[in-house]
């Protein structure tokens, strides 16, 4: 159980994340939605401790995540893998070595630095690539791949960490719809197959409804919605997205929810 307790992040005078409290049950596929700048990224990055909370605490079981440092912090990062919008691969390294970055926490520096990965680690990495149908790309340079392929490599890197949670920060925002579906399907498969909790920031409501068990809506750093996707009415969506509502709603919402008013059809 991941517990976020009154967590805030303050930059100067703006409260990017404002007293957020959430409990994430193991095995859930949680979508965090909201307009850009709502604090979704900041929240996710604090869970991995890429960002430090200004106030509040994050706990995972008995572990006080916010107090970790040194090897304990690295082990925590190993347990909550992160997937980024821009993939954050090492472009000049080949795909297999990029996946093996996920084994760093399991490997001593004297073996890792000269890239003397154990046979077992290499096998784990290759089988992760195989699971995502990209084992054939193992020897290619990461920067030569397409965006969709790079994001799948990043998912493999997350997988070989053997994590409890995967944090995905807008994983499909830089991808075309077809690749977005491939990547979201992969995340869903990992969630269902391995029981790894997925916490995923999404801009698109349509994707959020399709893939998530639970949606957390954020606006101005606060949680304004937290329920199953079916409970997300048009009204709530409008509040969440404000000025951006029409882009998200018109494009994404199915006819059931956004059926035009009869009068509008008549006109």
């Amino acid at each position, binding site marked *: 159980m991941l517990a976020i307790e009154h967590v805030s992040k303050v930059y100067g005078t703006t409260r990017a994340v404002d007293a957020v409290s959430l409990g994430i049950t193991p095995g859930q596929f949680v979508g965090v939605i909201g307009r850009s700048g709502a604090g979704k990224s900041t929240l996710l990055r604090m869970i991995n401790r890429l960002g430090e909370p200004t106030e509040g605490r994050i706990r995972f079981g008995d572990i006080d995540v916010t107090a970790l440092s040194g090897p304990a912090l690295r082990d925590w990062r190993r347990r909550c893998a*992160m997937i*980024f919008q821009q993939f954050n691969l090492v472009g000049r390294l080949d795909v297999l070595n990029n996946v093996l970055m996920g084994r760093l926490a399991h490997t001593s520096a004297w073996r890792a630095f000269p890239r003397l990965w154990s046979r077992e680690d290499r096998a784990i990495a290759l089988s992760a690539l195989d699971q995502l149908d990209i084992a054939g790309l193992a020897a290619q340079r990461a920067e030569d791949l397409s965006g969709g392929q790079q994001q799948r490599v990043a998912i493999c890197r997350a997988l070989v960490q053997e994590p409890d949670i995967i944090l995905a920060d807008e994983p499909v925002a830089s991808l075309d719809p077809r690749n977005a579906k491939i990547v979201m399907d992969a995340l869903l498969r990992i969630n269902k197959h391995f029981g790894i909790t997925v916490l995923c920031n999404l801009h698109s409501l349509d994707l959020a409804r399709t893939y998530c068990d639970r949606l957390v809506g954020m606006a101005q750093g606060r949680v304004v919605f937290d329920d199953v996707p079916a409970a997300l009415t048009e009204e709530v969506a409008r509040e969440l997205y404000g000025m951006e509502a029409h882009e998200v709603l018109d494009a994404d919402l199915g006819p059931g929810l956004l059926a035009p008013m009869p009068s509008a059809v008549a006109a």
Partner: protein
Amino acid sequence: MSESAATLSAMLRSRNVELPRYGWRTHGPGFVAIAVLIGLFFLGVPVLGISFERFIPGLWRLGDIVMLMMPPSPETWSRFFIYLEALGQTLAIAFLGTMTAAVFAIPLGFLAARNIVANRIVHFFARRLLDTVRSVDTLIWALIWINVVGLGPFAGALAIASADICALAKLMSEAIETADRRPVEGVTASGGSRAAAVRFGIVPQVLPVFASQVLYYIESNTRSATIIGIVGAGGIGVHLSEMIRVLEWQQVSFLILMVLVTVAIIDQISRVLRKTIAGRG
């Protein structure tokens, strides 16, 4: 203003578009800068005691020297081989000096990079140190090292190494600072240590840049190694200065040709290598 131009500007005015005006406000600073430069030039002439009376006959003398240089010749084959060996020495000075500089510059470059050493005070002093030492020219280092280890190529290699450590370190630290930080974040987020983040996030990005910078320095140090030979730090420059002193102009021109050809060859090799390195990324 012609009629069509008048209607055109009237049309623009009606759409609230103001024609840009050119005058002293826009062009003035440029004219002033050029005037100042010309003024400084004529101010400098008497200060340096430049006299055109001496210059014009000097041109004739220069012509005489060029005539005396023709045709370039080492005179004997034995001298040619001596020069060839000295040229090899010059190349060795450039190569060993630059490689030594690179070995020391790499750790210094990392120390001086803001994204590696976050401590502002360390960063500030590292940068100032690099800037200060960098401003001492190779020639000055050569004169110093000749007094320490004596005349010869060893002093030359030391001079190039000491002059370029800081210059290379500064370039390298800039390459490190402009490296993409996303891979670093990726490695950190997967549980890699700080050292692992540098090793995998930054080193693969900057190594090709370093290689290209070192190659360029080897190239340019081939020229520097010739010059420092003139003050006695070994290599072909020693012969060059000696032949100028004894007025053996044909041999002087032959030596200059040897240097020119060598530098051109090194330039070509280095350019091809640097292109290959860059092309891989």
